[in-house]
């Protein structure tokens, strides 16, 4: 969820009324926003850098508001005010400037391989104040971090139009052929030099990877060959904007055209209110108004309310979706403004109607859906066995499904290749390299963490391991295992063997060769030689039991003898 920081008093001024913190919190709740924090610049600096540094800072109250991830129209003060001002009858009408005095942006084919799309617009005769200017910069940053996916999908550049002249050209060139003075620097660099230069920049280094390995870098020139920007990295210094800029040229370059249009629409619709002709826009802006027609019955039956078409139209209009009942009274026509890119289906309008009605005013009803409950058979068996294992004196452990390669291979004296493990490609630490192929390491680690507890320690777990399996669509499957360990001064093979006998008794399998179960000496590097047996039930191997190898005991930082039982319970379904 993006967080937007706004000055409280400016917000209240724009909303035309004041609220207590509680009232504002309540308003946010109803709109699906969250008043996350009430703070000030002074507070923030004092918290991060100490009181001394904060003494000069402003103590104007700031509201930090969490905004839903799809509401790009609420990422700045201007947008929040429009969204929250639910009683405003006058909705802004965004129009394209009929005066076709707009500037063209020529796209060259070279950009196709690196960043194929670009759209641009102009904010004419804008009046910035320091607050508006900050909000303008802040909005671009919020858009970059959210819908633009850290500039990978869309990058925004803003320029002082009075310092450059169209038509503009968006092209791509070899890095050594691009030379310009980047924003806030004193000298020219080639693009290749710049990429090296920004390697250590705490902010910009995160974006270098987007184009770094491309043969051609995207670049925008004006008609005099001045570099406006090298998207998505940096703008040129020549055209930089300031609080005194009157005409702003905005370009969005992108790998996703839909999102580029949304981003451009968002910036111009938000800030055109500060232009001499508010909400009148120039450029390649989509400004796509759309009309959805739906019935009152649709809204009523989906939400569970019973409102007239007129009242629903009013509810929607309050949510900035201008709505009218059609002349025959049967349907509602809803106009979706360009700011509401989140509305892509009638159900999105339905949600706005429900929000305006108030989620908490809707009557809570019980659906009459009649169904009979069933347990998943594997889970039913698991639940029953867990209870009986605890009754047999063993304590249930709960260990992680992810672990290191070492846990399932080296430490158990197995070869990783023989484990049939699935491997994770992006683990942040070694703890998440593979999904476990056996429950044993988890139980041994639990023993190790509880060496101070009185002996004997008797643990079990019934849970899933993951194995490669070509026969499934994803190439892997879970397998439900029962694993138990006995840890004491004596190995206690007879205890773990007794537990196996008890489990078989619970599963109604009698001792015996053919239709029963039996154990047979087996070689297994995890176990002490001569102290391991394979378990067969109905002629099929279902697992092993035995005394663990001293090297295995050591590798899990244990000191006492330990016996273990490890079986697959799925054959008993």
């Amino acid at each position, binding site marked *: 969820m993006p967080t937007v920081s706004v000055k409280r008093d400016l917000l209240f001024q724009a909303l035309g009324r004041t609220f207590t913190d509680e009232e504002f919190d309540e308003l946010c709740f109803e709109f699906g926003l969250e008043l996350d924090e009430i703070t000030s610049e002074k507070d923030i600096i004092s918290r991060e850098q100490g009181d001394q540094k904060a003494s000069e800072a402003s103590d104007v109250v700031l509201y930090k508001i969490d905004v839903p991830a799809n509401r790009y129209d609420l990422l700045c003060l201007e947008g929040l005010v429009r969204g929250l001002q639910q009683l405003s009858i006058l909705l802004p009408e965004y129009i394209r400037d009929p005066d076709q005095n707009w500037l063209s942006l020529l796209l060259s084919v070279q950009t196709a391989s690196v960043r194929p799309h670009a759209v641009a617009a102009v904010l004419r005769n804008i009046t910035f104040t320091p607050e508006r200017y900050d909000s303008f910069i802040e909005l671009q940053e919020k858009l970059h971090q959210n819908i633009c996916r850290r500039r990978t999908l869309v990058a925004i550049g803003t320029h002082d139009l009075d310092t450059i002249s169209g038509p503009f050209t968006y092209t791509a060139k070899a890095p050594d052929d691009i030379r310009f003075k980047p924003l806030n620097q004193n000298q020219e660099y080639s693009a290749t030099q710049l990429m090296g230069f920004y390697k250590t920049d705490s902010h910009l280094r995160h974006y270098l990877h987007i184009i770094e390995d491309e043969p051609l870098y995207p670049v925008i020139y004006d008609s005099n060959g001045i570099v406006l920007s090298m998207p998505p990295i940096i703008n040129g210094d020549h055209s930089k904007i300031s609080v005194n800029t009157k005409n702003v040229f905005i370009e969005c370059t992108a790998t996703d055209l839909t999102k580029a249009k949304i981003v451009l629409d968002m910036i111009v619709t938000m800030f055109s209110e500060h232009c001499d002709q508010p909400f009148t826009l120039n450029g390649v802006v989509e400004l796509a108004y759309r009309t959805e027609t739906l019935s009152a019955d649709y809204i009523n039956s989906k939400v569970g309310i019973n409102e007239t078409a007129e009242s629903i139209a009013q509810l929607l209009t309050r949510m900035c979706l201008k709505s009218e009942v059609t002349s025959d009274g049967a349907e509602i026509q809803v106009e979706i403004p360009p700011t509401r890119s989140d509305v892509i289906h009638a159900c999105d309008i339905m949600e706005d109607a429900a929000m305006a009605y108030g989620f908490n005013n809707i009557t809570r009803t019980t659906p009459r859906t009649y169904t009979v409950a069933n347990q998943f058979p594997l889970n039913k068996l698991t639940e029953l066995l867990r209870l009986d294992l605890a009754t047999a004196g063993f304590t249930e452990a709960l260990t992680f499904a*992810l672990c290191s390669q070492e846990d399932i291979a080296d430490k158990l004296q197995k070869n990783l290749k023989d484990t049939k493990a699935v491997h994770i490609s992006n683990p942040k630490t070694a703890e998440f390299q593979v999904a476990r192929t056996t429950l044993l390491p988890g139980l041994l680690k639990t023993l190790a963490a509880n060496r101070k507890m009185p002996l004997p320690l008797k643990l079990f777990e019934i849970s899933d391991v993951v194995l490669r399996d070509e026969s499934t669509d994803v190439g892997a499957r879970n397998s439900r295992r029962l694993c138990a360990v006995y840890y004491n001064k004596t190995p206690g093979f007879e205890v773990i063997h007794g537990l196996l006998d008890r489990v078989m008794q619970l599963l109604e399998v009698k001792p015996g060769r053919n239709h029963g179960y039996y154990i047979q000496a087996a070689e297994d590097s995890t176990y002490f030689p001569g102290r391991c047996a394979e378990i067969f039930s109905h002629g099929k191997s279902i697992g092993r039991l035995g005394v663990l190898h001293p090297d295995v005991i050591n590798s899990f930082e244990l000191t006492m003898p330990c016996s273990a039982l490890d079986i697959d319970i799925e054959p008993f379904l």
Partner: protein
Amino acid sequence: MADTGILESLLRLVDKVDGGIDSQVVASSLGVDHQVVVGAVKSVQALGEVIEAEQRSSKHWELTGEGQEIAEQGSHEARVFKAIPEEGLSQSQLMVESIEDVVRKKLQQVQMGHSSQLEEKEKNELKKRKLLTEVTVKSYWITKGSNFSTIITKQETELTPEMIASGSWKEKKFKPYNFDAMGVAPDSGHLHPLMKVRTQFRQIFLEMGFTEMPTNNFIESSFWNFDSLFQPQQHPARDQHDTFFLSDPAVAHDFPQDYLERVKKVHSEGGYGSQGYKYDWKIEEAQKNILRTHTTAVSARMLYKLAQQEEFTPVKYFSIDRVFRNETLDATHLAEFHQIEGVVADYGLTLGDLMGVLHQFFTKLGITKLRFKPAYNPYTEPSMEVFSYHKGLNKWVEVGNSGVFRPEMLLPMGLPEGVSVIAWGLSLERPTMIKYGINNIRELVGHKVNLQMVYDSPVCRLDS
């Protein structure tokens, strides 16, 4: 236990005196060591309220070994005098004709118990000469108890099979138990507290008529985990920073081809009344295998399966199982946790129905005061966060997420137009941590937990 003779003699003495008697007096009058009397007092006390004994301490003077020798044989000086033979020493060497052995006399007085006749100064002088020592004696002041009797009845410690057989228990008195002591812990196994809570949640769903989904597939394709849920391919949740991807097996195969085409179309072009996301949907992205980030991937598979039925039948599904997130870990977040999920599919379900079902579900958890906040989720619309009023914290806290699945998810599956699917989810760990007062999730889940916590965890009743 002291022998009965002593006990009865003691009781007879106590019986004779008014107001009580000191144990030292008892010792001297019975002619036994004081420690024997102390033992007898304790034995009688154990019989119940026969006597009352108040501990006292007194000081008295006693002779040291050397002092005793002097009391018996005379002081060293007197002994020298006596040792002079009849025939004598030379007159000049004998300064006195007779002596009075004062030291011996004084010591004998102490020996006879008359130390009070000596002055403090004299006693201290003898103490300095290591002939006397002052000792503190602990004794008991013994009085009759409420059940006083001069006859001893022996107390039994435990009821025995013989007593039951012979009926002798009727005549016997039994030693009282110390009810303040703890009992011996039973020798037993224990269930893990998180799993106990899981059992309760399963129970609640079963009581509400929900059928359990098969969630035993930790590995999922991005297609079922994201694409089928109308979660766009550039969504941040599909980022390397949030999701565990697999290197082996890296990709999934065998998707239902018709359905996959419909999913592709609704993402890239829209349809079913939707504008879609209008981007270039790629099969390569959908094929990527991951550790599932939510059990909703299984709900998607189940709803797709339901849509393939000849005729739609309403369903209520639930699951509680592990999900995985490649997130930054802290006191309340691990890379894996359990998700609880409920899903209802039927014709004509409303947002009010979702709130009603949630109300019933949370009532079973002992939570009756709920309110709902609009939220955003790519696959539900409307989406609601569920808040409950926490009396301890004195504020509304988020307890779950819910919503109505989007038509862009349901219609490509082939579910009939009028069918709505409502769903909600929450984590199993959070309510468990609140229930058992655990602040750090590592104290609840994983191999580092203290088994004592598991041993000591109470039964789980979520509604009380």
